[in-house]
């Protein structure tokens, strides 16, 4: 597998950056922490915005972090077509920074949810995932605000552009009529990308199911950090 150098951004209040670095190193990649005040991302092959509670998420999730100095650099990096992934709080930050459309609202059940959840791979142009459409993955979710929402036109255009990457589903890959998303997400959306497919945001935590010894008894998350290497090498 191709070794890549990932930059993992640390905002004050990030708390999954160490898990991401562990998962990346476990997969044979190089991974370094990027302090939120750093602005030089040139050395990295890909950027990860990890989960956590940036600035406590006391305001809207991600609304403060998007103004960190590093985010301007992340925007420029993304606009060059280089790969950026935002996981959980990172996804929230990407929507706040308008690098991805829509918003993450509070879970419909008004409770934090931490549990392994089935989701299926949709046909998309996301450069971060290279799995057949309909593949069912089991990945833990862990959030209070993961209820994806956007206006109907945006949803339509995302569908048309192949921007919907992951949808929550039932164990067999089917979707229930009244929704399969544990958090109430619109159209069961768990992860989306931008039109170019280089910027990817998702609520589930693939880094938690990469090293099987970590206890979640799964390695479904590894795919999220391997496909991108082929893309970067080819690009």
């Amino acid at each position, binding site marked *: 597998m191709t070794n890549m150098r990932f930059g993992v951004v640390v905002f*004050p*209040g990030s*708390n*999954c*950056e*160490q*898990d*991401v*670095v*562990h*998962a990346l190193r476990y997969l044979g990649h190089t991974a370094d922490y990027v302090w939120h005040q750093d602005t030089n991302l040139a050395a990295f092959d890909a950027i990860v915005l990890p*989960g*956590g*509670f940036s*600035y*406590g*998420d*006391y305001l809207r999730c991600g609304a403060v972090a998007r103004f960190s100095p590093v985010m301007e650099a992340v925007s420029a990096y993304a606009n060059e077509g280089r790969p950026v992934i935002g996981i959980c709080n990172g996804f929230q930050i990407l929507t706040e920074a308008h690098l991805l459309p829509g918003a993450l609202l509070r879970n419909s059940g008004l*409770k*934090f*949810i*931490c*549990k392994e959840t089935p989701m299926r791979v949709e046909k998309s142009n996301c450069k971060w995932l290279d799995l057949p459409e309909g593949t069912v993955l089991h990945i*833990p979710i*862990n959030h*209070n605000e993961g209820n994806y929402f956007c206006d109907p036109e945006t949803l339509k255009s995302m569908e048309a552009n192949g921007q919907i990457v992951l949808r929550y589903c039932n164990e067999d890959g089917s979707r229930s009529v009244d929704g399969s998303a544990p958090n109430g997400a619109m159209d069961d959306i768990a992860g989306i990308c931008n039109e170019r497919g280089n910027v990817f945001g998702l609520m589930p*935590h693939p*880094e*938690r199911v990469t*090293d099987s*010894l*970590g*206890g*979640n008894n799964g390695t479904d998350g590894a795919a999220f950090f391997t496909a991108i290497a082929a893309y970067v090498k080819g690009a």
Partner: protein
Amino acid sequence: MSATNNAAIPAPVSDNVVTLDADLALEVALQLGLNSKEYEGVVKTQGRTPSLTELYIYSLMWSEHCSYKHSKKQLRMFSSEGEHVLQGPGENAGVISVGDGWAVAFKMESHNHPSAIEPFEGAATGVGGIIRDIFTMGARPIACLDSLRFGTLDKPRQRYLFEGAVAGIGSYGNCLGVPTIGGEVYFDEAYEGNCLINAMAIGLMREENLTRAVGSGPGNLVVLIGSSTGRDGIGGASVLASQEFDEAAENKRPAVQVGDPFEEKLLIEVCLELLQRKLFVALGDLGAAGLTSSASEMASRGGVGIDIDVSKVPQRESGMQPFEIMVSESQERMLAVVKPDDFAAVEEACKRWGVACTAIGTITDTGRFVVRDTNLPAGEDIVADMPAEMLAESAPEYDTLMQRPAYLDMLQSFFDEDQEEDSADDPVSRTRFVSSTAEDPQLLHDVLTEHVISGKLPSAVMDTQAFAPTPEAPLNQMFMAMLASPNIASKAWIYRQYDHQVMNNTVVLPGADAAVLRIGDTGRGEMSNRGIAATTDCNGRYCYLDPYTGAQIALAEAGRNLACVGATPAAITDCLNFGNPEKPEVFYTFHEAIKGLSEACKFFNIPVISGNVSFYNESFGNAIYPTPAVGMVGLVDDITKIATTGFKNEGDTIILVGETEDELGGSEYLKVMHGGLVAGRIPKLDLELERDIQAVVRDAVKDGLLASAHDLSEGGMGVALAECCIAGCIGATVALDDDLAAHSSLFSETQSRILVSVAEKNSAELITRLTDANVPYSVIGEVGGSNLNIEGKINLDVEKMTNIYNNILEQLVTRKSA
């Protein structure tokens, strides 16, 4: 009073402290919760009438919460000696070595009183406080567990407390990125006025990074790091935690602090960085009694003096008096001792993390705890001048009166046959009482209907299609009702609200006998195949009926839980929750519980390395059940060789290690099926048998012989079998060969029993080991099918059981108020 050693009191720094008028001082002292004898001790220690600030400080440091004045003598029964112990009680947390240079710090602490007033913030700041105790030691917090008690969920107030406390724990731990991996919860009327929120935290460090809160080096700076100081939480320790509750309890809400987990997250990172860089001489957190206890304990442990200027303390409110600054319990603050040359580096790191950092005083060689306010004119600026050591470590100590409560004999002998004959007009014969619902379907139906109407059980248990009794399976419905009791049902509704996986080291997720964590420095360094296992246990009902044996059972069950995952107990922390210690009956139960627990600890060779006492858990004169919660940590040599609860494979043999006796006293069965009855003799505990059973199962797990292992506790054999089926999504066919009545065979809570399943290729080896170990066992059935069939007793579809078992708690909590 033990404040006798007057010769050792160091001389005052100032003879110019403005003292109170003597009569007023006594009056204030009494208002602050000191008694007149203690006030005399203050005057004696000071050699004069105290100032207002001094009086506040004494009242907090000598409050029950800070000084343990009623419990100190009893606590000396505990032994903290053990091969793994690096730090015993007396520090912010105990520390054990776990191999390969790794060490683990852990402690459990109560936040009962604040949570009973304001559950969300009370529970959240409870988590914040215990986590500060952990990283203060130099350890990165890696896990939390919570031992919770509430009244029954049919009461709207109890649902509010329960929901609020769970949300508060989640909000704090989730934000920090510290996984909440386990714990326990019980619902019982006894906790209606006083819920219990006991939070346990575990931290990991390299042994060489162990740090203590011992101030040293006169001339070194005393540095306050973290949040600014406000009036929140003033008197939390003395007002809330050292008195009973009454009608005025609601007015105490302002004494509950508000948590800021984001600030705490920053504190963890900056403090661990600075500890690693060896820039702290000492570090302590500001908990109960705030700056006062933190600074004086640090000085006292180091045998030095400390001089604090309150005008330097960053304040979030204007016009704060020196005493308010000294006793504020504003959260998320740390106190460090720093060499003057290192202060610039400390400031730089704090600035980088966005954390405030202020030098507020110095370490001195005077042995005095001096508080000054440099806003006052020079010469009059010292507002308190006290002997540091006397303040922290020479608080009064009491020999409290004890008396065996009358209820004990009455309840213990409730079912004894040699009692006076039941009178003819007694509607239910006592000796028949325990079997009545099992033998009379109509009575069972009536009991269950009543529970459903009151909201203690969900209506689903009345589903006659799914759970109808048949001649072959007469107890189906009763069985479902037991599984639906919130004390037994799945706690997934709770732990789904907690991040239990962050840090990537949770090997066994919540819901198992014990949580298992991998030892590893996620994302920063070395990972290993070593692990630790952790659990919290205590059956308060047992401790109410028999505090000595009940406390021993708490320890035994914790050890049994660890044995089921293959872990060897290393040490415990405890959180001793009791009523008002000034009542001789309450104090008797406290004494007996500690005696029982400490003797059992010595028998099993398990040291007590940290702990906490919470008294005054009483409302309107009614005390909670004595609840000595045990938090145990054990060592796992290889995290790839563990066992879990669920049955695994069709055809595996099911073996009961141990044997069932007729022991329904204090059981969940009596509580659920007999109108809330809490009576009888609780199960016996044979320590030697318990030790042998734990050892043989633990070794079998470590050697990979077992497919599953699960401890038997509340609800006995029936519930344990159901849990193994539910966790494994597979059925079982079982024949119980004891000679007991059906309900006792299913629900007796006899101790020292573990249910294991084993593949055919390993069963002969296991049986040889059980025989050699001379422990009783019986082969009771086989894994397989989609039903749990206990011959002649119950026959139920596992999926239907799962639906009830998994969803019941949510249904009971979220239903609308009647």
